[in-house]
């Protein structure tokens, strides 16, 4: 009796969250799927017609799609490489005892709390400006020609900005994992004569592997949706040099008002994200059983 009662009330307590999330997922996604099969442009109201997979063919054969896919992969891959390697280094550093370590840790994690539009604009103007920027001044002081970041290396510039924002996340998670490492194991290895490098390769790195996987998967989910940094710096340009899948869909939807094409693109983005999500869900699910 009691269990039946609790079970019923448990269902009731979960209902609002479950129903809302279900609606949030199914209604818009269903609409996107439906729109993706229509010829539908907001500039030509009343002209909607069924076109089957026409929008998908159009989206996938658009030369911009190939570039956008490559840009997306470069952006995600570049940021992941910088944050995982840099984050490991920073985590190892912050794991050492030194004076003022707590304050340094606060300084290192700070970029994560800066809103994307602020960090993108601050980097673009005050640091990367080819004439008045700080980087240009440093380059000239050292006798080099300053780099015109957003004209010559637009995608790299965005990668650097986004990497700066996500470096704290990787650092913090890897540091947390590092601190759960058994000290005795390290000491035992040290006594057995293992050097710093082999201790790192054979003890620390395997211990960090799971945390690294978590960092890679979660960052990928967020990085596939990088948007604000592109909007306020390059608008996807020059040409389509910094257009990602997310940005391409945005342009099609809110700049060209092509509802059908943008919806097809949205579905493509969902499929791409799902490939990553499956791995992540499995990993977290495994952890839940422990």
């Amino acid at each position: 009796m009691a269990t039946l009662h609790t079970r019923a009330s448990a269902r009731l307590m979960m209902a609002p969250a479950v129903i809302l999330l279900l609606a949030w997922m199914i209604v818009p996604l269903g609409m996107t799927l439906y729109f993706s099969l229509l010829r539908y442009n907001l500039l030509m109201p009343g002209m909607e017609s069924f076109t089957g997979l026409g929008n998908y063919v159009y989206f996938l054969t658009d030369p911009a799609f190939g570039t956008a896919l490559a840009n997306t992969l470069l952006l995600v891959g570049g940021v992941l490489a910088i944050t995982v390697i840099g984050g490991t280094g920073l985590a190892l550093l912050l794991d050492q005892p030194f004076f003022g370590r707590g304050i340094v840790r606060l300084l290192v994690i700070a970029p994560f709390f800066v809103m994307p539009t602020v960090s993108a604009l601050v980097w673009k103007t005050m640091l990367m400006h080819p004439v008045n920027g700080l980087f240009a001044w440093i380059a000239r002081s050292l006798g080099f020609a300053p780099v015109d970041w957003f004209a010559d290396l637009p995608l790299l510039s965005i990668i650097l900005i986004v990497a700066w924002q996500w470096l704290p996340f990787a650092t913090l998670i890897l540091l947390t994992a590092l601190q759960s490492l058994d000290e005795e194991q390290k000491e035992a290895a040290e006594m057995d004569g293992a050097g710093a490098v082999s201790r790192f390769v054979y003890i620390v790195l395997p211990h960090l592997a799971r945390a690294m996987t978590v960092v890679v998967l979660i960052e990928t989910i967020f990085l596939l949706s990088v948007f604000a940094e592109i909007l306020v710096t390059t608008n996807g340009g020059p040409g389509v040099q910094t257009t990602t899948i997310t940005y391409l869909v945005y342009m099609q939807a809110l700049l060209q008002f092509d509802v059908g094409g943008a919806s097809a693109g949205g579905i493509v983005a969902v499929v791409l994200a799902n490939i990553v999500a499956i791995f992540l869900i499995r990993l977290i699910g495994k952890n839940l059983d422990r």
Partner: protein
Amino acid sequence: MARAASARRRIAFTIIGWAVGFLVFFPILWTVLTSFKSEGTAIAIPPQFLFFDWTAENYATVQSRSNYLRHMTNSIVISLGSTLLGLLIAIPAAWAMAFSPTRRTKDVLMWMLSTKMLPAVGVLVPIYLLFRDFGLLDSRAGLTAVLTMINLPIIVWMLYTYFREIPADILEAARMDGASLGKEIVYVLAPMAVPGIASTLLLNVILAWNEAFWTLNLSTSQAAPLTAFIAAYSSPEGLFWAKLSAASTLAIAPILVLGWFAQRQLVRGLTFGAVK
């Protein structure tokens, strides 16, 4: 000998650590410094680091020219509103899953997580059209609703991981001692649940404050929070470095302080309990 070596090592790491920390933090420091310069000093070459005429006029200008306080208020209303609404929906759900788990609880949690992985562009078009038809574009209510939904899975998950750590036996013990349901909640459950709820609140206010896909796409002026307001500084002719810096400093300062308090919860919240 050994002690001297370890002291030297400590000093070396102190120098390296502070140098690296300074470098990573530098863009933020530079923004704060620039906000106190005149526009001329802000773009001066060589750059002026500390010895310039400090002025607070940018802060006054930013407020008088663009009604900064309105956007600040929007940010506060939207981030706090969406978080509180999310907690209201999530607390019962997380509670039920933590204390009366069924065979399907894990599947429900996993499914909730999967909704978070839905890329925003996948639902941009219908949400935009629905908002347009219901008059929700550029409204605080609309943005609050969207942010509630996108952060709801994280809120449920975080609360679940906290609630799961509350020993269920303690409830029974209280019941045996003759505590009524009301007393049980006030004296036994609340003290154990509040820290977890507070951490969840903190992290989600931060996430909502910095959210910059929906806020940029669904607001223009009236309801624009700080993310969207700062984006307006991206037009080339409107680029005033000192004023951009003043607006940015005000936009990030409160959340940076909250973030420093929430650093431990950050790991737990954003990895869905996978790393603690």
